[in-house]
Each structure stands twice: as C-alpha cells, then as structure tokens.
C-alpha cells in the first residue's frame, strides 16, 4: 500500500543526506589528501555556526556577509590547525594524529562554553516550510541539499580541471614521489586544509539555518561524519556522497518506523557490519 508518510520520510532522508554529504565533503578531502582524521572537524563547523550567530544577532551584520566571514574564519582555523597541531605529528604513528585533533576537540568545545555559555543559540529566523501534496519539507534542508550538490560539483571541477587540483590528487596517490616531481607538499597540505576548513564553514552556514548552536553540537554531528567518510572509502568523494544518503535513509526511515535514536543505532550498526564486509569502503574493488 502506498504510504504518503513513508514517502515523506524517504524524501526527508534524501534532504538530510544532502546536509550530511556537505559535512563529509571537507573532511573527506583532508582525509584523502593529508591522511589525517580531523576528529575535531565538527567543532570547526561549530566555530562557523557561532561566528554567524554572533555577527548576525549581536552586531546585526547582514546574513550573507556573516556567512562569508564565517567561511573565511573557519578556513583560517583549518590552516592554523594544520600548521600548529598536525604538522608536528605528521611523522609519528597515525593514531597520534587522530588523538591530537581529539585534544583540539576538547579545547574548542570548552572554549566555546567559556565564550558563549552552554545555552542553545539560534538565529531567530523562521525558514519557510515547503508543502508538496500534503508532504512537508524544510526549506533549509532543500537549500542544504542544493548546496551539497553544487559543492561536490565545484570541488570535482577544481580537483580535475585545475593545476592545483591535479597536484592535490597526485600527492594523495603517492606522497613520496610527488615532492621529487616539483610539487611542494607543504603548500598542498596547507591549501587542502584551507579548502577543508572552508567546506566546514559552508556546512556551518547551512546548519545554522536549521539547528540551534551549542558547545556540544559537534558531538552530535561528528561521529556520523567520520562514519560516512569511512563507509564511502577514505578520500573517495563520490563514495562519501552516496554513503551520506545511505546513512540518512537509515536515520530517516528507521526513525519513521521506530524512533529517531533507533534510526541512528541502525545506521551505526550498519556501519560496523559494512566495515567487516568491505573495510575499504562501499565502492572498493
């Protein structure tokens, strides 16, 4: 039997997938190129959300300018993160690189509490609800979905059509040989970190439209973002994109049949099982 509520859940899942795909995009790039897991990636997103809230609500800065400022700031944060924290541990065991960004996670979460308190903050905007034949969709999610599509396209064009993009792809394939070919890995890593941070900023601006920001928000988005990247295959943009939609369907449809937490439980359990079946990601050969 045709169930309009199930259809609504599925379409909402697709839209949620857009948000998740956007979140995973920057992390996946950093993951693939520098081979470092930014455990604090979702905290970078939080920085962006706070920046927008602060500029928009406190100083009345117009929203587009606040968003642009946030993207620039988070991009700078990405560069600083790489320069100050990642570079000193690049030669050490990979797990140290993961853990050191975990220290940054604690730092940023606590610093946000220190600066803004534990309250939930929102922009106070009311985004319209789109109604299509008795089904309701959030406009903010549709916007995020569209941005995610555009983001993937732009990133793909950048990576395949520009010299810098080609160098980035090359260095992620062989980091020993490329320096000999005249590519400066330090510059590539910095550029990648800046782009990765900028992507976190873009994600932040779309999340700020539909979620309240609070210091622990990173913990609710962080884990799922890593899972998506790993499930899609580290550094595999297209894989990550598809994985985001698979995850979103689990959450949305699982939440439709049971409760939203069960949806997440199913998604994580699916991730664990997939790690055993296909440890290199969904699309490995």
């Amino acid at each position, binding site marked *: 039997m045709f169930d309009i509520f199930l259809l609504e859940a599925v379409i909402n899942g697709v839209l949620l997938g857009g948000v998740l795909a956007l979140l995973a995009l920057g992390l996946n790039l950093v993951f693939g190129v520098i081979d470092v*897991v930014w455990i604090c990636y979702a905290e970078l997103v939080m920085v962006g959300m706070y920046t927008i809230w602060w500029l928009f609500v406190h100083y009345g800065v117009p929203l587009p300018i606040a968003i642009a400022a946030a993207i620039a700031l988070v991009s700078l944060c990405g560069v600083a993160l790489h320069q100050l*924290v990642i570079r*000193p*541990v690049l030669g*050490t*065991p*990979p*797990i*140290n690189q*993961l*853990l*050191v960004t*975990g*220290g*940054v*996670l*604690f*730092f*940023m*979460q*606590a*610093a*946000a*509490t*220190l600066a803004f*308190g*534990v309250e939930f903050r929102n922009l106070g905007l009311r985004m319209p609800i789109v109604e299509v034949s008795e089904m309701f969709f959030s406009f903010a999610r549709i916007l995020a979905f569209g941005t995610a599509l555009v983001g993937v396209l732009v990133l793909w064009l950048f990576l395949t059509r520009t010299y810098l993009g080609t160098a980035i792809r090359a260095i992620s394939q062989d980091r020993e040989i490329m320096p000999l070919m005249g590519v400066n890995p330090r510059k590539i890593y910095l550029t990648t970190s800046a782009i990765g941070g900028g992507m976190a900023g873009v994600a932040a601006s779309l999340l700020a439209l539909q979620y309240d920001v609070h*210091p*622990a928000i990173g*913990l609710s988005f*962080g*884990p799922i973002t*890593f*899972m998506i990247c*790993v499930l899609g295959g580290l550094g595999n943009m297209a894989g990550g994109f598809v994985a985001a939609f698979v995850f979103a369907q689990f959450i949305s449809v699982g939440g439709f049949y*049971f*409760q939203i*937490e*069960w949806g*997440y*439980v199913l998604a*994580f*359990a699916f*991730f*664990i099982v997939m*790690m*055993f079946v296909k*440890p290199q990601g969904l699309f490995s050969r």
Partner: protein
Amino acid sequence: MSEPRAMPLVPLLGVAALAALPFAGLGNYHLHLLINILIWGFIYTAWSIMGRFGMVSLGHGAFLGVGAYVVTLLWNTAGLTPWVGIPIALVLAMMLALMIGYPCFRFRIVGHYFALVTLALGEVVRLTIVALREHTGGSLGMTVEGVAGGTSLYALQFGERGTFFHVALAVWLFGLWVWRIVDRSMLRYALEAASEDEDASASVGVNVTRAKLAITMLSAAMTALGGALYAQYQLYINPETVSGIGISLQIVFAVIAGGMYVQLGPTVGAVITLLLAETLRVTVGHDVHGLDGTIYGLLLVLFIIYMPQGISGYAVAAWKRRRASRPPQAPTPRAAPAR
C-alpha cells in the same frame, strides 16, 4: 620491566598508608576526590591494558555503559543484588567485546579504522540507552534506588565514604594486579610482536586474533566493573557521563597524559585530570564553565606532540637514563607503537 624484587616493601607500605587514609581524619570532600581517583584510575588501567598494544579504542564508553546500566536496571526493576548483577554485566560486556572484536581482528582492522569502529560501538550503546527511555530514563539518566539507612552489603551501597574508599581501593589494586599479570605473561610478548608486525608474528606462531580477543575481553570486563562501581558510588547515571564519545575520549586522553606503558601511568592520569579540574573549580569558581576543559585540551595537544609516553613514561625514561652509566640495563620502555 617491573619493579626489582629487592624492594617489595615500598608498594606494601604504600598500600597500607593508603588503606589507613580514611582514619587520618580526612574530610568527606577529600575522600570523595580519592574515591574518584581510584575508580577512574581503575577504568583507565582497564583501557590501557589493551591500549598499550596499539589497540586504541575510542568506544570504551560502551563497556562502561553496559556495566553501569545493566547492574542498575537489574537492581531497580527486578531487585536483583549487584552481587549477581555485576557478573551478568561483565559477561554481557565480554560478549559485546567478542562480537566487535572477532571480526575486527579477523579482518585486520587496525589503527584509525579500529578507533572509528569502536567509536561507532560507543555511539550504538549510548543511543540504545537513550532510546530505551521507558526503562532507562533516556537522557535524563536514572537514579540507583537507595536502601534505607544508606548502607547495605546486599545492595552494595555504602553511605559511609570511608567504607566505599576501601572497596574502591581493593578494586583499584585488583586492576594493578591484572596489569602486572599481563605484563609478565606470554600474551604481552605475543601482542607486542603483533602490534609491530602482524604478518611476521603470525608466521612465527602467534595466534594474533586470539591474543587480541583475549586482551580486549579482559579490558571490556574490567571497564564494565568500573562502570558498575561508578554507578554504586554516584547512585546516579546518565548516558552522557557513562557512555558515548565524550567519556570515551576522556578515558583515552587521561591515559595519554598519565602514560600507558607504565603500571601506575593511568592512575597518574586520573590524578592529573581530577586535580586540574578541582583546582580550577576552587580557584576560579563555578561561574566560569569550560576553563578546565580549555586548559585540559591545550595540555593534551602539547602532550601528544612533545611527550607521547605521558608523564610517568617520561619520568621512568629519565630515571633509567640517569642509571644508565651504572650496570647494564633492561631496555627502556617502548615509545608509541611503530607505524
């Protein structure tokens, strides 16, 4: 290696001095701090029993949560004494470790893949607790039903802080003892070999999967015991404080700060983190939320960059260097596992 046999007196005296502490007129506040150090010191020791072999789990909150919630649920709803509840929780935690560990080790999931799988496991347990809100109270947490008078051996509740201190001390000593047993076993050599090179160690007859499973299940059971102990002490549990990514990361980082390759390292980590939080709370006050976390986070980053063996690892290495001019020495403790 471990302490030379010539001086068993020092640890014995230390334990005796610790056991006598509650009679030395310590206030409730200081006893509370000490009990917390012992409980968390035990949990951190449980984590580093596997962590020191390069198996970095970011999901120990899962086992902590199973320990705390299973025991409390059985007590609150069925009136089952923790004396039965704890063994059940330990078995469940070990089954969970087996379920997640066997495929991981069988399919060679190591390094940050292992860390992310365990991270997912922690989230599964936390979200399950939240989703079962009719029984667990969801995110609001649940209170362990107290007994009249506050103290009952049957309910494993001790209103007297001094009594609980001795319980925690015993459990903590048990943790150190297990550490020592593992440290002196063949399992240690097998696992150290496996963490260096899995293929090579498998080719000389190490059953890598079985060795890793054994240590993971041991670590899981001990962590669950720590969770149960924590619940019995606080008499209130909450999915965020006993499960999930926040607490799992806290475990890892306290151990890194303290040092995971030395027996007392995890306990040193518990002392550092608690003292830091308390000092800042007392000097700065309640109003400034997040200051301790900010400093803690900064310290962690510095530790991982400049002192990956932790404070105690660094101290031991310095001590060994000083004695290096004298008779030939046992090898210094390994730094972080090789890539």
